[in-house]
């Protein structure tokens, strides 16, 4: 639904986006993650035609329409919830959404129904007559999302949608996003990686204007499994036994690193190693005090892919 090929964007001498290429399949919820200033908002701004990409950009297609050739048509296929949501406080919710509907080309006789539809979609129909400056932050975000849904655009760009919300509002908003899955293609930018992990089918990691990683859930979950750690504590084996344990662990194919301190081993390995450790302990009569796995998080994957070593390797 979104296909970007060699997208570049410069502000003077500074290159905000450097040959960015990625695609978002139809109906998928894709997490677009990166540090501050990595290029997330710049990418969104190109997709909404607020900014024009550099001339060397090969192609930016939204819903099958080439944004470089027909920006207005491409723009009409995108709904956006910006990070900085500025609503005209002096207007009522219905006045604002009707105005936005007209701007988005919703025909006159459908406007009221469309406003009711989007307010129902974001679970805020009771807010229809409220002034925008009297709404809580959670409802303001919902109205922003309702605005993005006006005209039923196939693509939704959500820039930090849960920023400033309390935990309950975050849960509710996450449910709303979940409800849009399948009907819309979502590109969701967020710093809250736990949220991305829960909601998204795909992730796209951007750092210093370059795409570092683009993967679907299955692949990144496999990565997380591999990056997980096992903590093993044995009942005071003697020094010889300790080195025997360390040696055996290092010989296992799933193991990446082994660290030993006293009678505790910290092992970076796939979780499946636990069963074999159990069997080995029975055979060797090791007394296991504790054996627990600590799964890796998207955060660790993110740090790995945007860390200085990776940048150095890529450059």
């Amino acid at each position: 639904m979104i296909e970007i090929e060699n997208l570049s964007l410069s502000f003077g001498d500074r290159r905000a986006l450097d040959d960015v290429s990625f695609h978002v399949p139809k109906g998928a919820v894709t997490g677009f993650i990166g540090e501050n200033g990595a290029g997330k908002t710049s990418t969104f701004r190109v997709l909404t035609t607020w900014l024009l990409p550099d001339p060397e950009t090969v192609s930016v297609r939204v819903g099958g329409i080439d944004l470089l050739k027909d920006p207005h048509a491409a723009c009409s296929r995108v709904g956006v919830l910006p990070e900085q949501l500025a609503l005209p406080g002096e207007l009522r919710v219905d006045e604002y959404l009707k105005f936005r509907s007209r701007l988005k080309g919703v025909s006159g006789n459908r406007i009221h129904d469309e406003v009711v539809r989007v307010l129902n979609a974001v679970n805020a129909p009771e807010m229809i007559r409220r002034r925008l400056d009297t709404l809580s932050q959670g409802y303001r975000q919902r109205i922003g999302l309702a605005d993005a849904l006006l005209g039923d655009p196939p693509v939704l760009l959500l820039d930090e949608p849960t920023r400033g919300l309390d935990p309950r509002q975050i849960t509710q908003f996450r449910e709303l996003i979940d409800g849009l899955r399948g009907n819309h293609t979502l590109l969701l930018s967020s710093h809250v990686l736990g949220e991305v992990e829960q909601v998204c089918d795909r992730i796209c990691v951007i750092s210093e204007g370059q795409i570092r990683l683009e993967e679907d859930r299955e692949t990144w979950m496999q990565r997380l499994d591999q990056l997980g750690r096992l903590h093993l504590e044995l009942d005071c084996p003697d020094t010889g036994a300790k080195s025997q344990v360390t040696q055996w662990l290092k010989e296992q194919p799933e193991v990446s690193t082994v660290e030993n301190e006293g009678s505790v081993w910290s092992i970076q390995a796939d979780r499946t190693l636990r069963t074999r450790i159990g069997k080995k302990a029975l055979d060797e009569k090791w007394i296991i005090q504790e054996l627990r796995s600590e799964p890796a998080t998207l955060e660790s994957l993110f740090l790995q892919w945007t860390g200085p070593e990776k940048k150095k390797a890529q450059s």
Partner: protein
Amino acid sequence: MKRAYFLFRKELTSIFVSPVAWIIMVLFTLVMGANLYLSMIAVSGDLKQLVAAGYGGLVSWFMLLVIPPLITMKSLADENRQGALEVLMVTGISDASVVAAKWAAAWIFYVILWCCLLPLWGILGMVGVLDTGVLFVTHMGLFVVGAAYCANGILASALTSHPLASAGLAFMFNVGLFMIHWLRFFFRPGDLELLWVEYLSAVHHIGDELTQGILDIRVFVWWGSFTLLTLFLSARVLERRRW
């Protein structure tokens, strides 16, 4: 154009649902009403001279220079700062349409302000002999000069991202245009340059021509052209994010 019209309607609604607009209207009517009252005393009740005395005086010019920057200061500056402009542009509306709609809403409010004084003139017309032609022509002049001053406000608003800075800049633009009149003291009667200064001077147009009942179409050509040029520049300034 349709989108520009929808935005214009929304802008006008936003102006009139804000209490600030009504406060400005009340203050404007009170100050200008007092100004007309004092002018009437100064011209000993001669309604023929009252238009020139009331609308060609300092108070009237102060209003002309100050009101447009106040009306336009939030138009683009505030929206740019808050990110509302970006949200607006996502709908596919063009930069030129945004500029035109914001200017039109500000100008209509400016026109309505001056129209608030019409009941006063109506009452004066009932008690004395009022030259409605002079009054009409003077108002046309005020509207066309105001159109240019509002365009200056829109340009200043596009150039800055803070309303107060925008108001200050627009005021400076307006004062700059106003000061053209005083270049006349550098030239002698008959000089070509003096004709140019008079052609460009709002003070000359309103004070010496329109309030005297002299209708010169060149006044409208000059201020109309200036307005269009300034609005074009404003649209270009708005587009600069893409340069």
